């Protein structure tokens, strides 16, 4: 099972000092966080893409390329890559290039983005969000899997005889996750292709997360990719830890109370009850995180939000050390102990896909059923 940290690189001021980081500080902090992830034994670092303040990271592949040069085994991912407002041609090119630079240590999580004004800045319309995600991703799959693409669709200019370069490393397209909080079409999209489904349930109750994941699992099985419990699932999580749980609560509360997204709303106590947020001892984090598998089934990737709400970099790095040394080693053991033999521990990686059946679902644009029906239409 993979464990990691994910962030959106927000420039939130530290509420205890009022100090806002500079862009230079925030960008270099993300590199430091990624290096720390590798140093403390975590598996994945994921960065979110934003094109509006108060966020600092607009180009995930530039950041991840830099991190790739400073790490050796860390898997580089996104949280999320915008599949709606990015040209799929650019995505195909940039992430393939990142594959080569990182030696295949890359996968990506696609999301639509929920900020209306961002869409027109890139010539799009949020009302087409799902349609954009569907069309753009299908084209992205083709660009990575077919050397020469002729294509015509609704949202970009047609392509005639186009070859996306560089070709994917070892002709293995990166593994893709689809992230959505409550849109069934996105769970369906992940299931259709046999891709991963990521539910960032940090703002929602686990019952809702369980329903979304269950829907994805059922559809994954429907499309013949395997049993429902073999579908590839990732979850978000949010923790703050100190040896003594009261210390954790005391230190985190001022950050919680004014945090973006949920600040000024529910109390810390209500939010920890109703969402996966755990503020307490490492042991409490372990116990809480293990319950996620009871709700969604045995899963493959757990990401933690650590860098947010204006927490100083030194605190973030400290928290990651606790996570990597005291929490994750126990979680690895416990999650594997409860996992049935036929349920994979890890999501597909470049290393496993290189050796995989080249006729398998990952290497085809769509499930066989679609290819057969397309053939019949000709």
């Amino acid at each position, binding site marked *: 099972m993979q464990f990691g940290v994910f962030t959106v690189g927000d420039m939130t001021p530290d509420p205890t000092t009022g100090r806002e980081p500079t862009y230079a500080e925030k960008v270099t902090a993300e590199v430091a966080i990624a290096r720390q992830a590798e140093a403390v034994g975590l598996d994945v670092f994921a960065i979110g893409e934003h094109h509006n303040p108060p966020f600092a990271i607009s180009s995930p592949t530039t950041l991840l390329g830099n991190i790739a040069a400073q790490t050796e085994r860390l898997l580089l991912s996104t949280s999320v890559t915008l599949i709606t407002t990015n040209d799929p041609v650019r995505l195909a090119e940039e992430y393939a290039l990142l594959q080569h630079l990182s030696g295949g240590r890359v996968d990506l999580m696609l999301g639509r983005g929920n900020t209306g004004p961002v869409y027109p800045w890139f010539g799009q319309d949020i009302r087409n969000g799902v349609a954009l995600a569907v069309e753009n991703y299908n084209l992205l799959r083709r660009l990575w899997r077919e050397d020469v693409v002729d294509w015509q669709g609704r949202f970009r200019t047609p392509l005639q005889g186009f070859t996306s370069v560089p070709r994917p490393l070892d002709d293995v397209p990166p593994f893709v996750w689809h992230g959505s909080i409550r849109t069934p079409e996105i769970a369906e999209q992940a299931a259709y292709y046999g891709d991963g489904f990521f539910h960032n349930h940090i703002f929602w109750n686990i019952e809702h997360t369980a329903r979304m994941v269950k829907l994805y699992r059922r559809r994954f099985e429907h499309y013949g990719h395997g049993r429902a419990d073999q579908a590839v699932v990732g979850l978000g999580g949010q923790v703050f830890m100190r040896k003594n749980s009261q210390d954790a609560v005391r230190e985190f509360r001022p950050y919680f109370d004014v945090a973006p997204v949920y600040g000024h709303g*529910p109390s810390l106590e209500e939010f920890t009850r109703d969402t996966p947020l755990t503020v307490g001892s490492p042991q409490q984090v372990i116990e809480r995180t293990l319950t996620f598998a009871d709700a969604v089934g045995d899963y493959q990737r757990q990401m933690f939000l650590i860098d947010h709400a204006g927490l100083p970099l030194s605190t973030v790095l400290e928290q990651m050390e606790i996570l990597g040394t005291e929490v994750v080693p126990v979680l690895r053991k416990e999650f594997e102990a409860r996992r049935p033999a036929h349920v994979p521990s890890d999501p597909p990686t470049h290393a496993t896909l290189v050796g995989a059946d080249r006729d398998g679902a990952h290497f085809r644009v769509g499930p066989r059923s679609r290819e057969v029906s397309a053939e019949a239409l000709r």
Partner: protein
Amino acid sequence: MTRVVVVTAGLSRPSSTRLLADRIADAVGDRLRVRDADPEVETIELRELGSDITSAMLTGGMPSARLSAAAASLASADAVIAVTPVFTASYSGLFKSFFDVLDPGVLQSTPVLIAATAGTERHSLVLDHALRPLLTYLRAVVVPTGVFAATSDFGGQDEAGEGLSRRIARAADELSDLVAARPGTPSWGTTRSARPTDALAQAEAAEDEGSFTPFEELLGHQT
């Protein structure tokens, strides 16, 4: 059984809003009993959901257990009575916020009676200028008569008081007629099952009955 759900946004206890809500609920209940419709009335006091509503709004929609229960009640209601005090020339913020954090489909096609209270009758058009458009937007079926009660309407035997009783009676007639006429409830034997009100619930229901929209349909005609 016929489920009547009352939504009341009064703040004090007792509130004139709750008083009005109860009078209307009694009148509707009487009429449904006459029709052997076996009414069951449930009242949702929005004050009790105040912090849940605020939290849902500030977290981007995370429902609490109490809020989910209220939404489920509305989704399976055969009729709804929605009553608000008038604050600053409109429905109260709490009343509006409650509907803001519900799934928009929760009242679709549901017969609804609207009512409001205020200190003065000068606010009476709030029913038609504020409550009716809100519920129409939610695709509820709003009965023609709204019930507005100013403080003076609670005066008892005077002309104004009788007017209130008449308005309650007329609105209750309209609501019970509408409930009785609805397809799916002719026998009065069963409660309308809860409708899937959000996209996820609809998808779950479709998967259960094997009518899930295949992804190929979403993909459309790319070549």
